[in-house]
């Protein structure tokens, strides 16, 4: 256990304390206590800086070493970048939520427990070196996200959104898990370090492509890439601090993290590059296009998040080409710039999108609506919020003097590099990127100017417009300040954080101590990138001014055939299919279930006897059959026959227990006192049980049953009898292995017990017995519940 392990576990350790703090200090907002956790962790991770040139060590805490699953953690620059975003944004969001979430009305103990669970899980994802542990934390983020989206579970839309997010991300997570297993199969380890070191092994393996595609599926589902993005807009039903934190700054970036982390293992090939770049660019364009038509500000931000994630994804795709085999170093450096841009934009996006979400949360909180049609003219009333919105939106649109400008320029450089190096097949990359950036610019303008300028529509608002309290404005102010700071000191940031992080995505391209990407400059002179930005501004302003004239194209989008309806339809279809399938065999009749069980037994045991040609009875070793044994057998047959022909239940019960008691005689003949004793007592108890149940049974009647039913019964009963007789005889003919009973004969020395049966039950096979009594007790509880439930239903009117 090292301090890094402890850092990951701290949020989990804090979880159980939160409800007590909530109960104990009702007058203090629980958020104030929780705030310490991310703040503490943020400073803990800051202490890792400045980074040393050499690779940090993998810290291993053995967990299941037999399977190669260890809690191994690793804090390199990429992990630390994410850890800083997670804890830093976490602290700001907790602070923001103190003012956003009412301490009187909301279930804060649940809220902060979920939030801490997410925080810890996310740290686990970005710091784990073991794929299985990473997967566990990955699913934990999905789970805590589910709980947080459904935090206002009274609303149907929250529940639906939560289920949708869970289904899609779990589907992705599961396929990713399969991919991980394949990777481990190919390289022989779950350790990411080990896999990267043995990437050549992986690339030659037959499972390389399926593993890659499965892992990418998981990353795309988590990072809301096309066509899996549909869960993210619905996830906006979560409280706004959560949307800002999980669904824009951190969790959705887990997919990006995974792609970046595994680039050294998978990158360099064509498939990796084309799949990631194409999915990223399509997501970028499609989501930015859809964002323009949103009327809910939060939905607009959701689509914008999807599109920005696509942007970073496509940059990671382009960067992977630097690892292509035979790539000369100068050209590789050009692609490497894309990795730097990806990391830079990732940081920028967390900052400006977090700030924008918080501003929208302020509007929602203070005005009671986020509907863009009801807003307008708020500039004078909410000057601070307005300034924050301008900074966030302009940074997103890629305008100076904000951090977004620099990373957006670098993004264009990346797409142009792809064009230059790959020539015509890649022409669509810069074109679509430019188009998408145009739409991005337009919705940023809508976000700012539709909300804050124009005519004020006070009548449509629930509350009179007013500025938010200072505490609520503080976190977005800090984030906005960072957005400006990133513009003015990009090189300090680059040297300490971004460049080392980019270097871990593309290892081996730059010597330790030497930067991967050179100087970030604000002015490149007249360049194609500048022209692209200028074009965006000019066309963007034009499109924004004439929005009503061209927004008609959105009406031409198909309404019936959308991804959402496809998702809903397939869910409903699956449900229907499974219920129809289940109704086929779950009829509610015990006789049907019994016939399945017995039928399978006949097929399995009888089939095995027949197909394996295992029936070679060998009667030579048997003892002589005594007359009294035959007599008892005859008695059993007679009582069984009585059971069949009896017309009263009481006779049946007595006949049945006679069979059981006679069988116990055999145990006495063959000197098994333990079994005889048990059989006797079980017979007694079950007879008593039958008598008890007797009370509830209807009168035994003779009904004419269809011939087919009787025939089935005949086949089953004859089959079971035959199979068991044959099995009993077949046993005599086989002595393939030494009998294991020799071992148990030493029970006195091994277990200190003279009774071998008991020693087997409680000692040699004690684990079996333990689980058996668990099953037995569970069955007893089942009977109890069934009887109670039936009663309750009967008492209901």
């Amino acid at each position, binding site marked *: 256990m090292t301090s890094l392990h402890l850092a990951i576990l701290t949020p989990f350790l804090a979880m159980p304390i939160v409800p007590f703090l909530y109960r104990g200090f009702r007058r203090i907002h629980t958020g104030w206590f929780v705030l310490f956790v991310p703040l503490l962790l943020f400073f803990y991770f800051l202490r890792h800086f400045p980074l040393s040139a050499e690779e940090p060590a993998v810290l291993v805490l053995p967990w299941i070493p037999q399977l190669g699953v260890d809690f191994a953690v690793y804090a390199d620059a990429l992990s630390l970048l994410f850890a800083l975003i997670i804890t830093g944004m976490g602290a700001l969001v907790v602070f923001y939520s103190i003012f956003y979430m009412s301490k009187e009305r909301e279930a804060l103990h649940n809220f902060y427990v979920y939030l801490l669970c997410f925080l810890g899980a996310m740290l686990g994802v970005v710091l784990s070196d073991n794929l299985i542990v990473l997967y566990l934390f990955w699913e934990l983020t999905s789970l805590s996200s589910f709980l947080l989206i459904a935090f206002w579970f009274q609303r149907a839309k929250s529940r639906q959104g939560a289920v949708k997010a869970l289904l899609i991300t779990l589907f992705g997570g599961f396929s990713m898990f399969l991919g991980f297993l394949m990777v481990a199969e190919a390289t022989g380890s779950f350790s990411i370090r080990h896999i990267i070191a043995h990437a050549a092994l992986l690339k030659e393996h037959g499972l390389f492509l399926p593993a890659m595609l499965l892992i990418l599926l998981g990353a795309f589902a988590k990072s809301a890439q096309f066509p899996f993005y549909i869960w993210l807009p619905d996830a906006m039903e979560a409280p706004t601090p959560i949307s800002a934190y999980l669904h824009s700054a951190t969790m959705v970036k887990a997919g990006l993290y995974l792609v970046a982390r595994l680039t050294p293992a998978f990158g360099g090939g064509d498939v990796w590059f084309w799949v990631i770049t194409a999915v990223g660019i399509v997501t970028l364009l499609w989501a930015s296009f859809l964002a323009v038509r949103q009327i809910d500000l939060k939905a607009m931000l959701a689509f914008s998040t999807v599109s920005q994630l696509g942007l970073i994804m496509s940059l990671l795709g382009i960067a992977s080409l630097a690892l292509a085999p035979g790539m000369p170093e100068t050209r590789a450096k050009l692609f490497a710039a894309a990795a730097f841009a990806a990391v830079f934009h990732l940081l920028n996006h967390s900052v400006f999108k977090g700030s924008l979400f918080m501003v929208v949360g302020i509007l929602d909180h203070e005005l009671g609506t986020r509907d863009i049609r009801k807003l307008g003219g708020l500039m004078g009333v909410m000057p601070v919020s307005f300034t924050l919105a301008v900074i966030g939106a302009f940074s997103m649109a890629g305008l100076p003097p904000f951090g977004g400008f620099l990373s957006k320029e670098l993004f264009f450089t990346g797409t142009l590099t792809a064009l230059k190096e790959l020539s015509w097949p890649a022409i669509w990359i810069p074109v679509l990127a430019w188009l998408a950036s145009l739409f991005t610019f337009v919705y940023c303008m809508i976000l700012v100017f539709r909300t804050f300028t124009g005519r004020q529509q006070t009548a449509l608002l629930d509350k009179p417009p007013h500025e938010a309290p200072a505490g609520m404005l503080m976190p977005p102010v800090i984030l906005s300040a960072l957005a400006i700071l990133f513009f003015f000191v990009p090189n300090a940031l680059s040297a300490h954080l971004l460049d080392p992080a980019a270097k871990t995505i593309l290892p081996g391209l730059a010597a330790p101590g030497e930067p991967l990407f050179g100087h970030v400059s604000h002015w490149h002179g007249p360049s194609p990138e500048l022209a692209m930005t200028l074009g965006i501004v000019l066309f963007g302003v034009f499109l924004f001014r004439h929005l009503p004239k061209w927004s008609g194209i959105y009406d031409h989008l198909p309404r019936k055939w959308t991804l959402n309806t496809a998702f809903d339809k397939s869910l409903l279809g699956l449900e229907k299919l499974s219920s129809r399938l289940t109704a086929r065999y779950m009829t509610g009749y015990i006789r049907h279930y019994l016939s399945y069980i017995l039928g399978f037994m006949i097929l399995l045991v009888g089939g095995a006897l027949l197909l394996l040609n295992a029936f070679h009875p060998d009667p030579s070793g048997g003892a002589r059959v005594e007359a009294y044994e035959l007599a008892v057998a005859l008695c059993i047959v007679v009582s069984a026959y009585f059971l069949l022909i009896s017309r009263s239940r009481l006779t049946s019960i007595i006949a049945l227990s006679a069979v059981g008691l006679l069988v116990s005689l055999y145990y006495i003949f063959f000197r098994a006192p*333990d079994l005889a004793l048990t059989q006797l007592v079980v017979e007694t108890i079950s007879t008593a049980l039958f008598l008890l149940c007797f009370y509830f049974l209807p009168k035994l009647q003779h009904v004419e049953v269809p011939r087919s039913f009787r025939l089935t019964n005949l086949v089953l009963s004859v089959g079971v009898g035959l199979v068991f007789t044959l099995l009993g005889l077949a046993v005599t003919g086989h002595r393939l292995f030494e009998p294991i009973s020799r071992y148990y004969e030493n029970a006195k020395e091994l277990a200190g017990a003279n009774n071998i049966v008991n020693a087997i039950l409680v000692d040699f096979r004690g684990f079996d017995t333990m689980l058996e009594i668990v099953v037995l007790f569970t069955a007893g509880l089942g009977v109890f519940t069934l009887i109670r439930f039936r*009663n309750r239903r009967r008492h209901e009117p």
Partner: protein
Amino acid sequence: MSEPTDKRRGSPSPKPAAAWRRKFRSLASIRAYEDKAADDSRRIRLPGKFNDVYLHTASQVLVFLIMTYAIYILFAGHNNPGGGFVGGLVTATGFVLLYLAFDSKTVRQIIPVNFRSIGAAGVLIAVLTGAVPALMGEPFLTHRTDHARLPLVGDVHLATAVLFDIGVFLAVLGTAMTIISNISEDE
């Protein structure tokens, strides 16, 4: 369960002596069922002729014998036929005898325990006897045996396996009685 049984039958107090005169409902109903004259309704009046003083007297003695035997085979199981499973079942037969001789209300006065808790306690004991060695760094469910000299009793063979067997005993007893008592008390 909500309605006390004696109200419907019109007998006033739940004194044991009075309760003894009542029948175990199931047994009575069996008789009534077999009696073709009885109507088909589920709420059958007792015939009132059935004199079960033999059953009462015998069961009062027998139950103690059964219990003693059950505890004997629970502990004897280590070296002789028996063990927790059979012991639990034998104890359950003793309780079933009580249910047959007296009505369920009386039985619940005699044994005022929740059988579900007993079953759960049994499972818990069994799991804990496994967990303790695991916590001390040995394989799960490792058993130890030892001898001890106790005053008056003399040399005693002690085994942790017996603790596990007590868990089995309680789990089996609790489960069997949960089922039986629930079915018999069900209306």
